[in-house]
């Protein structure tokens, strides 16, 4: 059961990610990203992190991706034209990505022996536990991130405003 669900949503995520790469029009890649995020949310559920799954849906898929879609729609830039600007990207980038993947895989497989297996029933972290840790041990980071977001809002407004000087 767990395996089935995991496989379905893993494939969904991978397909979304690959689609993100292949799609020409940004709106499509945005939507494929939303698919990836929601499949990840389900994977979180499989891993027992309920609140996190819902937060992922609401925050990531619901808010951030909306922003992305809005910007894509508003700018309406259209398809990416095929400029193959940087040669180094190809010659250096791909091997590097391959090497990275190889490294991750190697470390995970080599070190993975002593990781346990995951099943549906065990270890569901309730929101109480989550909030206990969040608001007791890590209150300061929590407040800091809220300040960070405030600054981000101010920044976004200042940057995106029509008459802020340039152009």
């Amino acid at each position, binding site marked *: 059961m767990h395996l089935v669900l995991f496989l379905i949503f893993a494939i969904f995520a991978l397909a979304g990610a690959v689609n993100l790469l292949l799609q020409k029009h940004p709106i499509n890649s945005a939507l494929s990203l939303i698919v990836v995020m929601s499949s990840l949310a389900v994977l979180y559920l499989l891993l027992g992190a309920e609140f996190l799954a819902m937060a992922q849906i609401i925050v990531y898929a619901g808010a951030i991706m909306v922003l992305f879609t809005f910007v894509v729609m508003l700018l309406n830039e259209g398809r990416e034209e095929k400029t193959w600007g940087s040669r180094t990207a190809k010659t250096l*980038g791909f091997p590097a990505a391959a090497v*990275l993947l190889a*490294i991750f895989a190697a470390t995970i497989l080599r070190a993975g022996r002593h990781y346990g297996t995951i099943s549906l029933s065990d270890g569901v972290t309730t929101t109480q536990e989550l909030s206990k840790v969040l608001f007791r041990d890590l209150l300061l980071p929590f407040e800091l991130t809220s300040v960070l977001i405030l600054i981000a809002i101010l920044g976004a407004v200042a940057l995106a405003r029509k008459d802020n000087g340039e152009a």
Partner: protein
Amino acid sequence: MNDPMLFLPLIPLLPFLGFLLNGLLGSRLPKALVSAIALVFPLASFALVARAAWMVHAGLALPVVEHDAPAWIVSGAMHIGFGLALDQLTLVMLLVITGVGFLIHLYSVGYMEHETGYWRYFAYLNLFLFFMTTLVLAANFLLMFVGWEGVGLASYLLIGFYIDRKSAGDAGKKAFVVNRVGDFGFLIAIFLLLGNFGTLNFSEIAAHLAAPAGLSGGTITLICLCLLLGATGKSAQIPLYIWLPDAMEGPTPVSALIHAATMVTAGVYMIARAHALFDLSPTALMVVAVIGAATAFFAATVAMVQTDIKRVLAYSTISQLGYMFLACGVGAYSAAVFHLMTHAFFKALLFLAAGSVIHGLSGEQDMRRMGGLRKEMPVTFWTMTAAVLAISGFFPFAGFFSKDAILAAAFHQGAVGKALWTVGLITALMTSFYMFRLWYLTFMGKSRTESRHAHESPWIMLTPLMILAALSVSGGWVGMDRFGAFLAPVTGTPANAGDAHVELMLSVLAVLVAAAGWFVAHSIYGRSGSQSMTESLASPRRVLENKYWVDELYVACVVRPIEWIARYVLGWIGELVLVRGSAWLMAGIAGLCGEWLRRWQSGNLRSYAAWLAAAAAVLLIFVLAGTLLGVGGFAQTISWAVR
């Protein structure tokens, strides 16, 4: 033996005091006071020397060495002090220096009457006396070196006395630099002595040499040759004589004092003083003798054609010094010193007489425009005649005795000695010829310049002339053997066992040679105006006139190459290429790296991303090298890399 009230240090210090007084305050003092100071201090020092001479005559045992002398340079085991010492040789030299020195001071008062910088002249003169007396009184080589360089400085200052005359400045510079080359040799000798004996005091060195320390002959010869180089520098012998003729730019009394009587004899004195060293290396002695003879002969040939009266005397001095070196070379040090003394008397007289002639003719120095001064300047004429006779070596005069002694000593030195003797004889012939040529051209015949009102010099100039004339005549009567005996303790007795008959024969021959010289001069210059004979020898005459182009040779093969190397090799290659080049290279490299990196920063976002990914990959490999390769992680890789 402690100093029995001889006040040795005072002898040099008094003239130094005179120098200080005149030097610092001279420009403000009236002329009379300046000349008073200039005369009083040398006189006082002469008095001290005379008193010392009297005490020696009254039986004071020499040598007198000052032991508790103040220390000068003390470093590690080397201990050099201001030690002064008086022995027979020093006494003779002091007598000559201070005696003749004082006379010349007296003469200069008259001669330099209306010169600007009057006080500066006398200050330098006193400074010279201070250095010369230090040189002679020094008990160790380094203090002698002090005197050595000091007199070089004094001669530089005095030659360059007429500051507005460029030729005087050049001559002074030339004199000092050439002397400096000689001093270089002397310095190397000092180091060699220091290296081998550990001390520079004459007494200690003599002691070391007495005990047969295993010193190789080679080093001894090397030391002697270096000392010889120093001597030739100072006494203007073959390689380094070029400065003396130019030194005539200075005022005549200076030439008289420095370039005739005292300074140039320093070289001879030094060889005599270090005779213990020279005796141990026959090769060095041979070199000295050969140089002496060669210089004598060479200088005499050049003197024969000179037209400037002072140049003639200058070359004659070089020639006479050649004789003294010849004497030393054959081991007759006492003969050399004896000739030195007599030469001081008559050469100083010659110069001073020439000075009064020039003074009389208000600065005229060219003999071709003189003549017929016999009547206008009788005293100068008679004193000059005495000097000419003395130098040519006629019988009763001083020159005969000393020159004869030298030739005799040379004669007894075997085959080489005989050859040297013949050269000496020929030089004697030439000497008498050019002296009488000078004599005729200046005094005899008619005056060759119309508007001329030659007047006799004032008495203050004439008295020294007369005293010197007396000395020139009577100087030789002391006799070689008595003089040799007096100097024996210092210079040792020469081994010339020639019998009386040969001696007599030699001296007769010498007088005949002198007479022959006179006759030739008389035949050429005696009858007024006929110089046809000399014109005929055009080509050799031109060679001689140009002094064998020696000066030009020196300039060409020493001065020009150094300048060329300095300006082009060092200046261009050394400075510009190496020093500036290296700095420019560094800048270039930095610029190059900058250029190379600039291209890497292309602004292309995706190439940055590629580099980022690559770097991350490499870093991960590096960090995880352990787990991946099983080598054991981070520490190993780091330590491997650093080792």
